[in-house]
């Protein structure tokens, strides 16, 4: 099923990227997995928060491995969202560091970053400055609130954008307060949109020779994801209540407990035929005739009672057996897989999306890779997240022809290197 490894649709393009944390790192990792040569430029004095703190211990389960050396190379957060990149370090706070960066940009098709809006300008490498060096450059900024408007310089991260993009107010139990999701999901949403913005700009440049600036606001991109609820307000004047797992239209539509600890089934009926089939699987044919459940509209109006009878039934069932019987009967159903089950999932492995990736310090671990399949340009080469500064010598030689003695000099000056910069306060960086 898995075709031979070949480069993806973006083969032949290169990004020099300053991306960090989740949104930016995952955006450029996706581009890397699609075939772009993505070179991450790290700023050691401002360690990527997803590499952790320099002073943090290597996490339990990894720290005893003989190969595990530095916590910042063994952080699962960073390593999960940084596949298919090379990494160099440059101190962009020094003239030498910025000088090397500007020389590299000449060889780039796109630059991406997710600093606060003022940072690039302060470093002298914003879009206008880079376009003077490379007129058709594409520069993408993924920021909290975009690069103009009154909130432009207010910082934000996924956990604060989820509330300010209207998502938290919609997420939660029917009887409960607003919630944030289990991780900072506004980040990968911005990352996916960043991919669309950058590939659209690459396509336009290919046709016209023109570069451009991509201004992505995490708030706006995340609000677009719940835009139907925004439009509900502008059209009907109503704030959609929190629905938990319920659907605006169909019932049942939910997640119900089964036998065992923390084992759940997701099930939904999107037609009367599916409801009828569910009644058969449940061996409760009388539900079909129950006036509370006789039509979708009746089930929606009596959803608490509907969920009570379904919960009582599923509580006595084995999760996987139940899912198999529901799917066999044509009902929309799935097990709620926990993370280690996802890592072993036969379907995701058969598709090549979940697979082992060998990492120099951590060894072979199961990772989630590119969720896109291309028939002509399969994009199925996966490389581990880079160690900090792993490719400094290689990239500076390959693109700029710098000798190892010249790079040694940058290291001696503290402009490049690995690990915490000299004199750093490890706890406070």
């Amino acid at each position, binding site marked *: 099923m898995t075709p031979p490894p070949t480069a993806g649709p973006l083969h032949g393009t290169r990004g020099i990227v300053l991306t960090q944390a989740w949104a930016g790192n995952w955006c450029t990792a996706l581009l890397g997995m699609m075939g772009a040569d993505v070179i991450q430029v790290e700023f050691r004095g401002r360690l990527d928060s997803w590499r952790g703190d320099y002073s943090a211990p290597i996490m339990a389960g990894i720290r005893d491995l003989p190969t595990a050396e530095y916590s910042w190379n063994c952080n699962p957060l960073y390593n999960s969202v940084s596949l298919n990149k090379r990494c160099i370090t440059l101190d962009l706070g020094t003239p030498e560091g910025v000088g090397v960066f500007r020389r590299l940009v000449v060889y780039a098709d796109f630059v991406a970053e997710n600093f606060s809006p003022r940072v690039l300008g302060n470093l002298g490498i914003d879009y206008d400055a880079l376009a003077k060096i490379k007129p058709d450059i594409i520069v993408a900024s993924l920021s909290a609130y975009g690069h103009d408007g009154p909130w432009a310089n207010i*910082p934000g991260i996924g956990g604060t954008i989820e509330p300010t*993009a209207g998502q938290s107010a919609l997420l939660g139990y029917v009887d409960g307060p607003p919630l944030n999701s289990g991780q900072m999901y506004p980040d990968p949403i911005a990352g996916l949109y960043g991919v669309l913005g950058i590939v659209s700009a690459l396509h336009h440049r*290919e046709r016209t020779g023109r570069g451009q600036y991509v201004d992505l606001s995490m708030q706006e991109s995340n609000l677009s994801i719940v835009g139907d609820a925004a439009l509900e307000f502008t059209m009907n004047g109503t704030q959609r209540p929190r629905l938990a797992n319920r659907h605006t239209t169909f019932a049942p539509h939910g997640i119900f407990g089964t036998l065992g600890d923390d084992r759940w089934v997701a099930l939904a009926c999107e037609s009367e035929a599916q409801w009828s089939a569910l009644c058969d699987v449940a061996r409760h044919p009388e539900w079909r005739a129950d006036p509370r459940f006789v039509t979708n509209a009746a089930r929606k109006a009596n959803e608490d009672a509907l969920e009570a009878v379904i919960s009582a039934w599923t509580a006595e069932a084995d999760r996987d057996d139940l899912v198999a019987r529901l799917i066999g009967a044509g009902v929309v159903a799935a097990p709620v897989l926990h993370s280690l089950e996802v890592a072993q999932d036969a379907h995701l492995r058969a598709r090549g*999306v979940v697979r082992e990736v060998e990492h120099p310090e951590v060894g072979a671990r199961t990772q989630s890779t590119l969720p896109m*399949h291309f028939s002509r340009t399969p994009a199925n080469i996966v490389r581990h997240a880079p160690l900090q500064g792993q490719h400094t010598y290689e990239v500076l030689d390959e693109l700029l022809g710098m000798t190892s003695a010249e790079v040694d000099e940058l290291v001696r000056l503290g402009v490049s290197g690995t690990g915490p910069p000299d004199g750093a306060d490890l706890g406070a960086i």
Partner: protein
Amino acid sequence: MTGALDGTRVLDISTTTAGAWCTRLLAALGADVVVVEGPSGHPLRAIAPFDATGSSIPAAYWLADKRSVTLDLDTPDGQATVRRLAARVDILVSSYRPSELAARGLTYADMATPALVMGHVTPHGMDGPLAEVPGNDLTDAARSGWASINGNLGREPLKPAAWGGSMCSGVAAAGAIVAALFHRDRHPGEGQEVDVGEVEVLAGMFAPALLRSVYANEPYGRRDSADSLGGPVPVKDGHFALTLSRAHFWRDAMNLLGLTDLAEDPRWGASFYRQQHRDEYSKRVTDAMSEWNKADLFEELAVRRVVAGPVLTMAELAANEHLRERGFWLKPEDDPDSPEMPGTPFKLSDTPLALHHAAPKPGAHTAEVLREMEASS
């Protein structure tokens, strides 16, 4: 100025939110998108809530900026028309399972157009053990692991709000399709199939929790309770999240809240230390926050350049001065009487995205589109 996909033609035979959002984004980028609706209308037109005239509000959002043709894909005539239309477009988008496409003679091979980019966006992708199993936004969240870490410990896992999983899959599919166009730019005539599985998109969005769990060799669970670092907590007039990620955010926020001992002790500067010892400060921080209004707290933290998240309602977002100044809310260019709609998710300086048309009536462009097809054949 024109869009990045100006002159690009798209035929959309998808029936799902993910497919509709994918083509809606292609339209925003400038593509001419023709959506095929069956004789009883697009299935998304049945999705609540409805406006005063009984029209689906989600459909108004998802189907905007497209032209609509009515074709019955269960008849040979309808299928043949799709094949003829596909021969003159750049992109075909489908949400059908492999057997459903084969039964209708609508596979990529059936299109016999090598330059065509055919995007599939389906719950489980076009091959593998689950390819023929139906799914939706709920089962996407379940199978990807996404739901397992969302919501509270001791209660049922939660899927994303609204149609989050489907929408994200639509974004991913649009990105993959434009990447395939880029390949075709460099290799003229080389179309291909692009296959995006919704569960896989969410599994990609689940990657950090997955790898952390794999490293620890234990499942990643749901939170036992909300605290300010994990999500919104109550303040005077609503809820507020203070998910502090950097040392100076913590120091400046704690000083503002009057918790100077937490601000000054350097141990609390490291995020891993805060995560491990959250029980030691969580209640104090929450209590201090409860004395504030969300707007005041946001403003004071913004002055200090600290990340902060007031929980905003759609009414607050509709009135939000920042989004107003950014020009986020849009009316379709051809419908000044339309209510404002959420605008574009990002801005491109040389090829601005736009909202050209309101959602069409079902089949509104059937004659026009078929006439164009005849004229070009």
